[in-house]
């Protein structure tokens, strides 16, 4: 019984049917493990590891300069920027907005820079379901390629205070 002490030798040979499951379970665990390096090698979606340390003030200045340079319009008070294919594009998270609005082209690859000016935010493309964390002090660079035309929204999915649910930005794919 599982509540009684064990006397004598309990280090016994494992039954065949138990061994069968142990072997299969171990094999499955190795498959689970192999999938991740495999996807890094062959797959199209991998968390990037291009990260830089940056202060909130420096990042804000960088984004402002970028917006001045590439602004093509406005949407509900937000500047709209349209980077060229292969170019860098900068977005920032702050209480409680994603800034600026970004216009991309389907099938082109962009280097999307993300950082936060204040708290931890969650960058979630909705309803696409692509999620990354945005931390103050870190500039995260994601090489993204939109694969469908239309509008997606950047929803904040990490709690960042009372206005958290209002924090929605926009990305237009043409």
């Amino acid at each position, binding site marked *: 019984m599982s509540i009684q002490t064990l006397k004598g030798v309990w280090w016994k040979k494992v039954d065949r049917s138990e061994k069968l499951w142990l072997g299969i379970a171990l094999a499955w665990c190795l498959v689970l493990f192999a999938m991740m390096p495999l996807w890094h090698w062959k797959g199209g*979606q991998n968390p990037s590891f291009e990260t830089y340390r940056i202060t909130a003030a420096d990042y804000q200045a960088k984004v402002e300069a970028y917006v001045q340079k590439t602004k093509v319009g406005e949407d509900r008070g937000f500047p709209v920027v349209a980077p060229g294919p292969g170019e860098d594009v900068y977005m920032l998270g702050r209480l409680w907005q994603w800034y600026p609005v970004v216009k991309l082209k389907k099938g082109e690859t962009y280097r999307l820079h993300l950082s936060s000016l204040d708290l931890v935010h969650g960058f979630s493309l909705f309803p696409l379901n692509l999620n990354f964390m945005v931390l103050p002090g870190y500039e995260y660079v994601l090489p993204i390629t939109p694969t469908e035309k239309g509008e997606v929204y950047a929803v904040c999915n990490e709690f960042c205070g009372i206005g958290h649910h209002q924090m929605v930005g926009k990305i237009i794919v043409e």
Partner: protein
Amino acid sequence: MSSLATFRTCAQTGLRVDGAAERMIKVHAVAGVLAILFGGIAAVLVLLTRWPAVHLLGPAMYYRALTFHGMNMLIFWIIFFEIAILYFAGPILLGSRVAWPRVGWAGFGLMVLGSLLIDVAILRGGADVMFTSYVPLRAVSYFYLGWILFAVGALIGVLNFFATLVVARAERTYEGSMPLVTFGAATAAIIAVATLAHGAIIYIPTWLWSLGVIQNLDAGMYRLVWWGLGHPSQQINVTAMVAVWYLLATLTVGASPVNEKVCRTAFLLYILFINLAAAHHLLVDPQLSPAWKVFNTSYGMYLAVLASMVHGMTVPAAVEVAQRKKGLSKGLFEWLAKAPWGNPGFAALVLSLALFGFMGGITGVTFGAEQVNIISHNTLRIPGHFHSTVVAGTTLAFMGLTYFVVPLIFRRYILAPKLATAQIYLFGIGIAIFAGGMTTAGSYAIPRRHWDVQFASSFFQPPIEPAAFFFLGVMGIGGLLAGLGGALFVAITVASVFFGKRVPDVPGAVPLAAMPPDRGQHVPISGTLVLVFVFLAAFVIYYFLNWKWLAAIWYVR
């Protein structure tokens, strides 16, 4: 000291019970039930807000209720109950005295004080920071102090358990190797030390930061260390729950582990690997490398998952063998069909095991794959996953065990035992519907910790799939059933402790399963093998479906 301990011999189990251990179990269990009551009230408020058709609370109260719910359920209810389990598995199962009875009270006092500080801070609106309190989000400083006091108090309870193991050994209160349940509890206790140490390492500087002594805390560092507390605290749950599975299997059908070597080695794998899974929360963070993420999120090549898959086979196998030895050996499943389904302990064991494995385990491992996390992180898939593990798994198992704690420790009969059984089914099925709805809604990118997924007050209004609303409704209905089940649990338990008939001090007054006669025959576990292969098939299908869904989103490379 030992002369001060007063023992009774339990007429039901023959165990030698130290009065001090019994008192510690009682107070910790009472505190745990109070926590589940508080957390449960908050749960219903949160549920009715997240169900878009109701949307009950305003944003400030919603975020407050959610923080309160997380703390009381994930930390207070679970850890108070776990310390109670340690006072059972240590002194009582080994027939020993509690090593430090007074120190035990000090630990309990610190836990109570810490939890009160935290609850007061939240209710007064000083800590709307969620369970995770990610810096630089700031709470009042006594919120962080409460965390530290609670962690130190729990650590004292854990150390008292280890000290009791030493005392039992030294005073030769038992012979041979400790029972499996004690071994499993010891595993949980070792994991708890690592967990609580992370708690101290992160909350002491955070407390100093809240007091202005430290100026700056790095958000990435905080997340890394905090999850060394946050995730492993739930691994204590897993480990304690597995120990409780073995315990319930013994109490309800007289099951013995088929091979102690296999079971104990699996527990050992938990100690070595399970805490690495703290990485699950950091897979789409900027500050960590892919190599770090892949190794850690895989618990070092999934060896802790292997451990759970082993327990998922050995527990039902133990039940199958015990039942077959009683003569229920027709076909593949007579042993299961004629199991004591009306016993709340057995019902809790089966539902806990099945829901933890099929729902919690499969989703957890899948969402914890580095890349699949891109389509899961911080969506409702995540709370959907952990309500399947911590609630459908751990809480349900602990509820089933409570129906033995009340007659054996409080020595009161359960009032309305049939209602107790119904309570287990209601809660288990309710949580299964709830977590299923929640996880599925999350696959439509519905965020967790979010007051308004209709985005009525935001700058832009994203369109929402009607299917997502449907699954949020499923979540709402399942949650109400579970809420009713949870309320019944508190009502039955409290009423039984205060008004239940006293259990007389005669053998057999509480029906416990007898161990089946061992005629040395070889007993097949073919039914269990069928069940585990069904589980593996479900696992494989769900796992690869998720990679398929991942491949359909934008490229990130």
